[in-house]
C-alpha cells in the first residue's frame, strides 16, 4: 500500500471525526438496538477493499467533514456529526458512483435510524435492517471493483 502525502491530513480528519463520534464504534445504542454499533464496522469494510487507492479521494469532502463534525459538536446535534464522519471516511478513496451509495448507506449505523422506525412501529426490525443496509456497502464495493477490473 503506497501512502500518498495527501492521505495524512485526511486520516487526521477521520481520527477527529471518530473521536467526536466514538459511540458509533463502541457505544450502547439503546435497549432495542444493543449491537447497532457493529453495523459501523461492517460499513467500514469497503475501506479494506480500496486500500490501494487510499489517499486519492477528494480533499474537499474531508474539509466538508471537518465543518460538519464541528457544527454537530457545537450544536450537540449528533446526526450532523455522523454525516461528517461518513464524509471523512468516504473521502479517503477516489470519488465514484459507489461513493454516493456508500455515503447513503451510512444511515445504517446512525443511532437515530431507530427513531423513524419507532414512529411507524417497526422498532423490532431495527437490527436486521441496520445489518442488511450495512452489508450492502461491502457487497456493492466488491461489485464495483469487479466492474472496474473488467473495464480495465
Amino acid at each position, binding site marked *: 500500500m503506497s501512502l500518498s*502525502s495527501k492521505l495524512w*491530513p485526511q486520516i*487526521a480528519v477521520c481520527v*477527529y471525526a471518530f473521536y467526536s463520534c466514538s459511540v458509533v464504534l463502541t457505544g*450502547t445504542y439503546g*435497549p*432495542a*438496538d444493543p449491537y447497532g454499533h457493529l453495523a459501523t464496522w461492517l460499513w467500514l469494510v469497503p475501506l479494506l477493499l480500496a486500500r490501494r487507492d487510499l489517499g486519492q479521494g477528494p480533499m474537499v469532502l474531508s474539509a466538508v467533514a471537518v465543518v460538519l463534525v464541528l457544527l454537530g459538536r*457545537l450544536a450537540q446535534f449528533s446526526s450532523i456529526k455522523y454525516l461528517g464522519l461518513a464524509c471523512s471516511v468516504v473521502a479517503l478513496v477516489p470519488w465514484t458512483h459507489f461513493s454516493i451509495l456508500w455515503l447513503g448507506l451510512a444511515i445504517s449505523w446512525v443511532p437515530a435510524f431507530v427513531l423513524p422506525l419507532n*414512529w411507524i412501529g417497526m422498532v423490532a426490525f431495527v437490527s436486521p435492517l441496520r445489518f442488511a443496509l450495512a452489508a450492502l456497502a461491502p457487497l456493492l464495493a466488491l461489485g464495483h471493483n469487479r466492474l472496474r477490473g473488467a473495464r480495465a
Partner: protein
Amino acid sequence: MKQLLWVLLIAAVFFGIVWDRYPLQDAQDRLDAFPLQGAGFRGQELPLTEFEAAFLENVNVMKRYYAVGDQQVFLTAIDGTHNRSAVHDPTYCYVGSGWHVVDRERVIFAGGEADKIIIARPGQQREVLLWFSDGKERFASVFQYWIRATLRRISFGASGQEPVRVIMQPVGGEQPDWKKLMRDFVPLQDL
C-alpha cells in the same frame, strides 16, 4: 489544499476545545428547586437503575415518586444541557423494554401541552405523560426541542433556558386523572 485542510482541522479542534470550556448554564437549579413536598403532595427521591446511570452520563436527572392527593406517580425530569443526545423519544425505551405503543395523542393542560402515550404489554396497559419545559413554556414537540436546544447552544445560551424532558407515569396499574393531577400539582408549572 493539503495545507488548507491541516489549518481547517487545527482550527476546528481549537475552536471545539474553547467551545467545550464555555459553561452553558444548565437546568440543575430548576431541578434542585423542585419541592419534594408541599400543599397536597409529598415525594421521595428514587435511585437510577444501572442502565439509566450509564445511559444518562453527564445528564442532570431528577427521578422521584410523588403522591398527589389520592394519586401516585413517578416523575422524571432530564436536563440534557451537557449531553443533549440523552434526551430522546422515550417510547423507544419503552419498546426496548417490551412495551408497545397503543396510542399517542397531544393533550392541552394548564400552561401548555403534553403527549399522552398509552403503552401495553401482555396483561398490562399504562398511560404516560411527556412534555418539555423551559421553566416558562411547556411543549410536546420533539422537533421544537431540537430547534430550541440547538439555537441555545449556537447562541451561547442567549436564546433562553434549557428545556428539560419531563416524564410522568402512574405507579402500578391505575390510570391517573391527568387533568386533576396537573391542576393539583402546582409546582410542575415552574419546572
